[in-house]
């Protein structure tokens, strides 16, 4: 029997004519029966599913199974005053080797007075040679509770992939009451393995995560956050200032980071993560 050959990642690069342009545009409002999606537009192979009867938990599904250079995904979320929603993804988002152009993801959220949003996608896996440009913009009212958690895995670590050239260009902007309160700008461009090996940069990490919690009581929850990191094997820490709380993780093993992040989120949020996280 012939040995199973490794898939040729080059073959996944597709011509521009069939590149995907995904759209999710959803508006949530508080109703007599809890928060409901009032308007939903889905395009380009992306779907938003609501697996639970109670509470508004939405799962973003990419039926295309991943992204490659030139693909786009635009997610737009609006939470009306008082709406409460949890969003996650069905699986890790895989970004395949690019033929030169970058895959682009834009997430824009507008959150009305008293709204609560948890944006808890599963990790983004950047295959060797992939290029990803991501923009996350939140405009929120002063009293909104927002929890964002994003994690990134550099290369298919489990299969021993050697990480070559790549691009990860990630910018976040969180505006509260109109003013910019939190910005993050991560830029890795070129030889990713060498960059991640540097001591003050990756320090050998192949997975990183950032959690940002912006809420009226965010600073008072710092001890809760630190307690939720107890026993974590990742290099991680928490800090709170200006009505925000931020937790950062880095680990050599993506599975370790995922377990630490999942435990942190379930303890800090005092409840189980969406079911899709558990498989």
């Amino acid at each position: 029997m012939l040995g199973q050959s490794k898939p040729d990642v080059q073959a996944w690069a597709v011509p521009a004519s069939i590149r995907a342009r995904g759209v999710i545009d959803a508006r949530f409002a508080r109703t007599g029966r809890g928060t409901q999606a009032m308007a939903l537009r889905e395009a380009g192979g992306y779907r938003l599913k609501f697996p639970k009867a109670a509470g508004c938990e939405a799962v973003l599904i990419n039926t295309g199974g991943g992204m490659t250079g030139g693909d786009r995904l635009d997610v737009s979320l609006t939470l009306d005053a008082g709406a409460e929603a949890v969003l996650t993804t069905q699986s890790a988002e895989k970004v395949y080797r690019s033929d030169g152009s970058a895959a682009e993801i834009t997430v824009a959220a507008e959150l009305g007075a008293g709204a609560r949003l948890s944006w808890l996608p599963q990790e983004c896996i950047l295959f060797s040679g992939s290029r990803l440009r991501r923009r996350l913009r939140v405009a929120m009212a002063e009293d909104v509770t927002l929890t964002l958690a994003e994690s990134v895995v550099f290369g298919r670590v489990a299969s021993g992939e050697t990480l070559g050239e790549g691009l990860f260009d990630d910018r976040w902007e969180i505006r509260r009451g109109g003013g910019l309160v939190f910005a993050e700008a991560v830029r890795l461009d070129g030889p990713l393995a060498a960059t991640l090996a540097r001591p003050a940069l990756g320090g050998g990490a192949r997975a990183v995560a950032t959690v940002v919690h912006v809420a009226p009581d965010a600073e008072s929850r710092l001890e809760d956050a630190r307690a939720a990191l107890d026993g974590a094997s990742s290099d991680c820490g928490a800090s709170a200032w200006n009505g925000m709380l931020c937790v950062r993780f880095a680990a050599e093993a993506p599975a370790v980071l995922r377990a630490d992040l999942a435990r942190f989120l379930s303890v800090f949020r005092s409840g189980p993560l969406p079911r899709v996280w558990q498989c």
Partner: protein
Amino acid sequence: MLPLLVWLSPAFPVGAFAYSHGLEWAVETGQVKDAATAEAWLADLLALGSGRNDAVLLAAAWRAAAATDDEALCGVCELANALQPSRERHLEATQQGNAFLLAVRTAWPCAAVDRLAACWNGDVAYPVALGVAAAGHGVPLGATLEAALLAFVGNLVSAVVRLGPIGQTDGQRIIAALVSEVRRAAAFAEASTLDDVGSAAFRSDIASLRHETQYSRLFRS
């Protein structure tokens, strides 16, 4: 260019000696333990960390002040504050920036600094304050960037010396060895725009978070 020698001297009252930028934690964990590891850590900050970002922010502030573009200047002020990765780094950036502006307004008054005070009433991060003062006194951007980055390196080397893993002579060797990295980062920033803000100093950022709960501390960051 003489004002730079004064403003970036350790005697200028910004309190730079009080901040380690997370290095106190990196020394505690052994991530920085000798001259080679200290130099590598600082080279990373210049190439793809806070040194690089501070230089890009300084350049944007210098240009906005030189062009008397208040809207752009307020945008730089806001972004520089929002980019700080932790409470202590936010404190480090804004306490030094506020103190610098106070001293400059008293001893080195200029229209650009008055204009900043009129259009922005929040905290001002240190690189933004430096950029505005330099533009206000006609100090060229390139020289300001090189001097600011060299002072950044000098201050952190001094912190590592006080923390113990390297001596004074090693410290001076590290500063000399990093001059080429300083020049490279300054040249990059001189040609940059705010779109070039970006870093990948995950371990340095986490070190600043961990420093908050470090048991025994000499430094405020």
